[in-house]
């Protein structure tokens, strides 16, 4: 799935249309373009690398099969997230009751690598662990909305569409999720994250 020289000339929407016509290379290009973000989403929402890989594979195969159903009413990226959200939700329903894995040691280390002194690195690792653990404790619907809106940077409208919600319901869910995350992070750290990450 190496990016081709013409990739920048190919909009997501054009690639979906070509995929719908059976152009596998167009679909691979589209998947490659969004793989990192979609994987980041599935790791945090599906709870674990293996589960995330399975969910992402399920979602992308569903996107391939369903490319003809893309009507262009939302951005292709939003549509891809919709498909992957649904794949995660199906897996959650199958796994209901199982504890989620806590991801993030590697990510915490990545944050720490950018800090200068040993104390700053230790504080960043601690903050990263607190964020990872707090996120993992949240309900799946809270993780979904935080990942799409706050991490991946989808607009409010895109996030609502990807989650199958109206805009007011998405905003309400997002606000509750942010408050919940803040409280859980602070309970773990014993102080607000501002003091660590600034």
């Amino acid at each position: 799935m190496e990016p081709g020289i013409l990739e920048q000339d190919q909009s997501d929407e054009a690639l979906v249309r070509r995929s719908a016509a059976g152009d596998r290379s167009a679909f691979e290009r589209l998947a490659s373009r969004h793989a990192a973000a979609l994987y980041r989403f599935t790791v945090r929402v599906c709870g674990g690398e293996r589960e995330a890989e399975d969910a992402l594979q399920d979602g992308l195969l569903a996107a391939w099969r369903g490319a003809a159903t893309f009507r262009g009413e939302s951005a292709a990226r939003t549509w891809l997230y919709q498909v992957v959200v649904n794949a995660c939700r199906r897996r959650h329903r199958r796994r209901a009751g199982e504890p989620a894995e806590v991801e993030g040691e590697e990510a915490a280390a990545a944050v720490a690598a950018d800090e200068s002194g040993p104390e700053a690195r230790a504080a960043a690792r601690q903050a990263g662990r607190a964020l990872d653990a707090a996120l993992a404790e949240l309900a799946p619907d809270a993780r979904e909305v935080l990942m799409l809106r706050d991490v991946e940077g989808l607009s409010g409208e895109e996030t609502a569409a990807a989650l199958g919600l109206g805009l007011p319901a998405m905003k309400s869910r997002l606000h509750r999720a942010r408050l919940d995350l803040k409280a859980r992070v602070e309970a773990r750290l014993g102080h607000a994250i501002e003091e660590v990450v600034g």
Partner: protein
Amino acid sequence: MSTITWPVKVVAGLSCQDVLDRLSDYLDGELPGPAREAVEGHVKGCDGCARFGGEFKSTVRALRDHLLRSPAPPARLVARLREALDRELDQE
């Protein structure tokens, strides 16, 4: 769950709870001008809301910064997807 742990005030026509309820819309730039100015007016006169709002913003920002630096998808994922597409196309 009570989030407000500081003495509640009414400043600029808003209570601390009013400000708390509007924090996400404020942070996301989705409050219309007068509502935004009211929140800012309250925060200027309320240390508790100023501190809480700053921490709220920092938590959201830290989450994004932290997770955007998470590891890339493993190389095996690309191979798995290609194999799955191969199987899919074989069945068609």
